[in-house]
């Protein structure tokens, strides 16, 4: 006895699972698409260098959250803007990047990142 049939079925299942990304890409057809971020509604510069921002915004926001909530330290000195701004996700960040959906969510969705910012905060746009 060889059980050839069962083994072939098993192998096919294995190959189908192993090739998941390939047929998923074919079926979804969105392979080449990169997240496109909406340009900020106003201003030339971000509050820090934008490349640095891209890499470290999560730490910055995390620090802000702690400082504001626990230490009542609400103001941030921006070198790039040469001004003091409020440590606020909804007012400062979303003040320029008007749409969460067209900015934050683009990369986050692309990489299935689910930040817990929105557990407490609301997107003012959606709220309206």
């Amino acid at each position, binding site marked *: *006895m*060889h*059980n*050839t049939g069962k*083994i072939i079925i*098993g*192998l096919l299942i*294995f*190959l189908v699972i*192993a090739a*998941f*990304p*390939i047929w*998923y*890409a074919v079926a*979804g057809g*969105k*392979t*080449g*698409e*990169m*997240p496109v971020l909406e340009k900020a509604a106003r201003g030339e510069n971000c509050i820090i260098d934008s490349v640095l921002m*891209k*890499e470290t915004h*999560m*730490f910055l926001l*995390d620090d802000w959250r702690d400082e504001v909530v626990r230490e009542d330290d609400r103001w941030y000195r921006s070198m790039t803007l040469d001004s003091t701004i409020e440590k606020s996700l909804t007012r400062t960040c979303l003040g320029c990047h008007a749409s969460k959906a067209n900015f934050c969510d683009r*990369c986050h*969705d*692309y*990489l*299935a990142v*689910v930040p*817990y910012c929105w557990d407490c905060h609301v997107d003012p746009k959606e709220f309206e």
Partner: protein
Amino acid sequence: MSALFALLMIIVLLLIPIIGTEVLGLNYVFGVVIPYAAIAMFLIGFVYRIVRWASSAVPFKITTTCGQQKSHPWIKSSSLEAPHNTWGVIGRMALEVLFFRSLFRNTKADLREGPKLVYGPSKWLWAAGLVFHWSFLIILLRHFRFFAEPAPFFVSGLQALDGFFQIGLPIIYLTNVAIVAAVTFLFLRRLYDPKLRYISLGSDYFALFLILSIAASGILMRYTGFRADIVDVKQLAMGLVSFHPVVPETIGVMFYIHLFFVAVLFGYFPFSKLMHMGGIFMSPTRNMANNNREERHVNPWNYPVKTHTYEEWEDEFRDVMKAAGMPLEKEK
């Protein structure tokens, strides 16, 4: 000795992508060529091994029964430990594959004064093995956020579950901690138990070190200064799965190290004991029902053999049988 040799191999493997990308600038080779080659080796090798195994016959039904057979209706049979039909076999295999049923039985024999032999439960190997394998699977599935666009439904669920405690930033995944702890345990037990040290081969240590290196490079990338831009990583990954490879410029060396170790694992897989992944499904003592006397099993190479037939036997013993008054086929 063999552990040191395996460690040396890992160090050599570590240097390859560092030199390859940092010094020689072969980013395309390490980002595209090697991953493709590794996946090809994995898939072709895996299928080849299974086909090779499948080409060997299963001449007999040699189920190992770990429980009561099905005989009388009034004796409760153990359908998962001594399955008598296909459903039982599926259940038994599921327990083996998903929960390592047999390893769960593990005991430790201890010889005490008396002499007295005692057998205590020994679940550490089972626990570490289970934690390691499940962590590996969950981590692998989590990585589908890089290989699939949009990220499949299970990714965010797994991430939420895995990062349930929301400790640290980025959130520390339980499986990341678990896999390192479990593999470290599996390594240390090989080192500290004299019996294990005696049976361990260089290749046993190598597999553990390789997986530990993959986990470590991944963790360094996620949680330390060796951070990678995951948008670029996904671009590379999606390029690979859609067969339009691109190599973003900004990807750092830690990513190449990680990717190279993964490639080595995939390429090495079919030629190593890691094939137990496929093999367990084909294990003849587990994947057949204990219904031997109920259903015929056919041996494809069953050949005729020389026997001592009744006629030959009676011819040889006719006289003594006659004298003893025993019935005979032929009187002379």
